[in-house]
């Protein structure tokens, strides 16, 4: 949670500097973000490769557990797809790309900004932050009406870290490992799925 606030703080700081045009020319005219993204993805890769516990979780669990992230992927994409049908301003492809962030707002908004521009990038940022916030607030209700997987599903990629404590509290500790697994799978998929939706579909 503290991390999310710092991230928002940096975004807000940039926003204020941009609004007030209180910036050196170089930054306003050139775009460094692509190179920063290259660096970030290399680092994210090292993090995934180096994390022994994520490999172990994947090895030790039975095949049924795969269904959890799978139903989150299908559910999220079907959900935003339905929304785009009823909202003419939102194209299906854009809706799918935003939905495929699964709550991983930093990375998904960065990717979408690079491929589709800042407007959709901001929608992705807000939408995926909201996913985390709504999950933090509503897990008890979700679990009551939609069963034990509800918190994990609503949390999406955040089920492995920021929303894990609340999921574990309202669903039971034995589900924590499933939450972590689902969160890891979705987190790894975001950088593949988002560009795939925007560039290939």
């Amino acid at each position, binding site marked *: 949670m503290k991390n999310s606030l710092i991230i928002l703080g940096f975004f807000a*700081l940039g926003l204020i500097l941009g609004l007030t045009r209180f910036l050196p020319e170089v930054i306003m005219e050139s775009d460094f973000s692509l190179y920063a993204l290259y660096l970030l993805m290399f680092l994210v890769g*090292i993090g995934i490769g180096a994390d022994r516990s994520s490999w172990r979780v994947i090895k030790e669990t039975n095949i049924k557990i795969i269904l959890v992230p799978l139903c989150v992927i299908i559910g999220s994409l079907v959900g935003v797809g339905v929304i785009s049908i009823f909202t003419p301003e939102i194209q299906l492809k854009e809706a799918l790309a935003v939905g495929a962030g699964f709550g991983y707002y930093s990375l998904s908004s960065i990717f979408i900004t690079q491929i589709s521009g800042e407007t959709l990038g901001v929608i992705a940022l807000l939408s995926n932050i909201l996913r985390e916030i709504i999950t933090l607030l509503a897990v008890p209700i979700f679990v009551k009406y939609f069963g034990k997987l509800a918190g994990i599903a609503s949390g999406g990629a955040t089920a492995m870290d920021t929303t894990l404590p609340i999921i574990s509290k309202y669903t039971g500790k034995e589900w924590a490992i499933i939450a972590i697994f689902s969160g890891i799978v979705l987190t790894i998929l975001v950088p593949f799925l988002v560009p795939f939706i925007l560039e290939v579909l």
Partner: protein
Amino acid sequence: MITVLVLMTLGIGLGFFVGKFPKVIKGVDKMTTWSIYLLLFLLGIGVGLNEKIINNLHTIGLQALILTIGAILGSLVFAYITYKLFFKSK
């Protein structure tokens, strides 16, 4: 975007070998966090400079909210079905 995926795959490979060195991983984690800060900072600047976004912020916010509701409800429905069919006995 292919470059990004290639870099990430290279990273995963490299990560597999440096996984033994906790100091290196700690450094990588720190740099990851800071590059996320940097990118969101740059996105903030881009948005602030972009009048189209600033003038339409209420529409954009509303679109983001309804997409979130769609994504969460869709996930909940599929999670409910999956739970009933495969996990209930647990």
